[in-house]
């Protein structure tokens, strides 16, 4: 077959080059990220209101009765009844670990979603939030909580729907004989601003303080109280979105060459751009549905990864798959245990506050360091 890679002199050089690229920066980035995730995960399972020693907690993590128990995994992944296990294992496996897994899923979804939006708009400053996805989701969440409280059970679906609708509106506004990156970003900012005003207005109609707090948790992004149900909800969509984005990496690379070149190479630019945006909305919605609107991750992670591995999208997406979870898990350690360490209070703060506190200064640092921020 002409398309199968036959090892010849030239193809080996290309394979070697490919391996060299993987071996270097990307591999260390992935390994570093895995280390951060493991360290963050171990911290998360070791500390909390139910006190156990670090050793006890780690023993619970590797408890063979859970780890090798098919019935337990069935319970986690498919929601079957939990088998008998001791209390420590129950706390670690049913409360503390799933939160780490949700953080990982949210991190990779947001990072990849941001990376795709940045290629589609050819703008480093693009993210699901700039393009209106998050404010659309936030508005529908608030509407559900405040006005249509009967729909609260479907909050994740509602969030995803709101994100998709907002993006369609943005796309429609930006469309004039085709779209352009600048028009997309501008329309996104405008739609986002209007939706945010509506959100703020809705707070006045909230009946009691509990609803407002719940709404704030959603619109700032929080992992408090997430468990296996959220993992089950996000996992299939995440897997699908991540797979699609890896497969689409060559389309993303060609889009980066600019619209006219992509078209001259035979790409149906509008169709590809719309389809890729769909993948990015799917990824963003999967994360918003379980964690609300976590800011800055979709902006910062692709940026950070691009600085390390370059803008080749196969590497970039793979890098985001690892670095996104690392940032998210680390930030959630801060959100869950930060106040306990700092002031001794057992209150948790929404993880979106932590990502904002990390992301803002990092972004300022980038602005100072780089001469040309904006175009990829």
């Amino acid at each position: 077959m002409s398309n199968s890679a036959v090892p010849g002199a030239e193809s080996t050089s290309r394979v070697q080059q490919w391996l060299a690229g993987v071996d270097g920066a990307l591999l260390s980035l992935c390994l570093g990220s895995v280390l951060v995730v493991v360290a963050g995960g171990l911290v998360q399972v070791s500390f909390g209101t139910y006190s156990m020693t670090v050793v006890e907690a780690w023993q619970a993590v590797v408890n063979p009765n859970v780890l090798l128990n098919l019935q337990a995994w069935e319970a986690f992944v498919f929601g079957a009844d939990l088998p008998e296990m001791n209390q420590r294992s129950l706390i670690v496996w049913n409360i503390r670990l799933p939160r780490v897994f949700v953080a990982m899923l949210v991190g990779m979804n947001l990072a990849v979603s941001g990376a795709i939006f940045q290629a589609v708009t050819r703008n480093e400053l693009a993210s699901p939030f700039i393009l209106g996805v998050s404010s659309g989701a936030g508005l529908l969440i608030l509407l559900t909580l405040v006005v249509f409280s009967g729909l609260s059970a479907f909050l994740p679906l509602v969030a995803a729907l709101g994100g998709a609708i907002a993006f369609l509106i943005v796309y429609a506004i930006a469309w004039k004989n085709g779209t352009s990156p600048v028009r997309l970003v501008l329309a996104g900012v405008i739609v986002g601003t209007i939706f945010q005003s509506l959100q703020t207005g809705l707070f006045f109609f909230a009946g009691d303080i509990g609803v407002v707090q719940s709404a704030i948790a959603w619109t700032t992004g929080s992992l408090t109280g997430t468990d296996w149900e959220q993992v089950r909800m996000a996992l299939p969509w995440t897997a699908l979105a991540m797979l699609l984005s890896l497969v689409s990496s060559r389309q993303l690379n060609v889009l980066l060459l600019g619209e006219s070149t992509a078209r001259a190479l035979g790409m149906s630019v509008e169709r590809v751009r719309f389809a890729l945006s769909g993948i990015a909305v799917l990824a963003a919605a999967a994360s918003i549905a379980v964690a609300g609107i976590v800011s800055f991750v979709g902006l910062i992670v692709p940026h950070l990864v691009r600085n390390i591995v370059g803008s080749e999208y196969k590497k970039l997406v793979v890098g985001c798959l690892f670095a996104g979870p690392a940032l998210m898990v680390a930030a959630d350690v801060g959100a869950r245990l930060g106040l306990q360490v700092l002031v001794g209070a057992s209150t948790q703060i929404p993880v979106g506050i932590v990502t904002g506190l990390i992301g803002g200064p990092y972004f300022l640092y980038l602005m100072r360091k780089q001469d040309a921020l904006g175009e990829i």
Partner: protein
Amino acid sequence: MSEHERFERESNGRSNGESNAGDTATDADASAAHGSAVELRGEDLEIGYPSTDEPVVECETVLLPAGEVTALVGPNGSGKSTLLKSMANQLAPDCGQVRLDGEQVQSLESKELARRLGLLSQENESPASLTVEDLIYHGRYPHRGFFESVGDEDQAAVERAIDLAGVEDLREKEMKNLSGGQKQLAWIAMVLAQETDVLLLDEPTTYLDLHHQLRVMEVVRTLNREQGVTVGIVLHDIGQAARFADNLVAMKDGEPYDWGPPRDVVTEELLSEVFHVDASVDSESPTGPHIAPHRALDD
């Protein structure tokens, strides 16, 4: 090393191509390529932009003859680039049609068209960290299906393109580390890897130093002579166009003013009428008509 070697290799390649023309043995490929050369023809074209009422270009017939180099020349705003974009189906004409080997380009599927007709725009931007080799591989986009990985044919085409454009020594370099001229050669290698029958280039030599201008034009010439590729090229410099092209199309106010071989087209009258320049032309010069501009004429 490379500069001298490459020059020799290129000039060998060119002289081979020329001396073999009409010969028997090694010329089989070249003549086969010439035999299958493809023409690009525009008919009754009226081309405008959404923002303008009047068409920018009106043109009854424009022909890029099969296997020849045709240069579009004219002053700024005369519609050369607009015409070229429309010929490449990047800009839909208000009326009229463009035919590639008799087939209407609008009716061809976009990848199918990109396998037969290549276009290099005037300004190209690429990610800073992209290597030259990876850029050239993007030229294979129309030849690959959605799930297809790089095949032998793609590799062979990329190697040929690298060889022809003489960018072997740049292969591993990142785009951000290249000079303007080197970048342009890399982009040209990308469209070469597309392996099309027709190649359209929009001002590929503008802003380049003389060395790289000549390198670019020599690559185009070699491609045309050795592989019979039909070339349409917008050039700013009419002297350069007169030296390198088989035909000139001189554009004035969105319409072709004159068309033909350089010696017929480039006249003192044309320079004053179309370019508003007072110049003398030595049409007996062995390297094509030689232009000596004297002063700008009032409009």
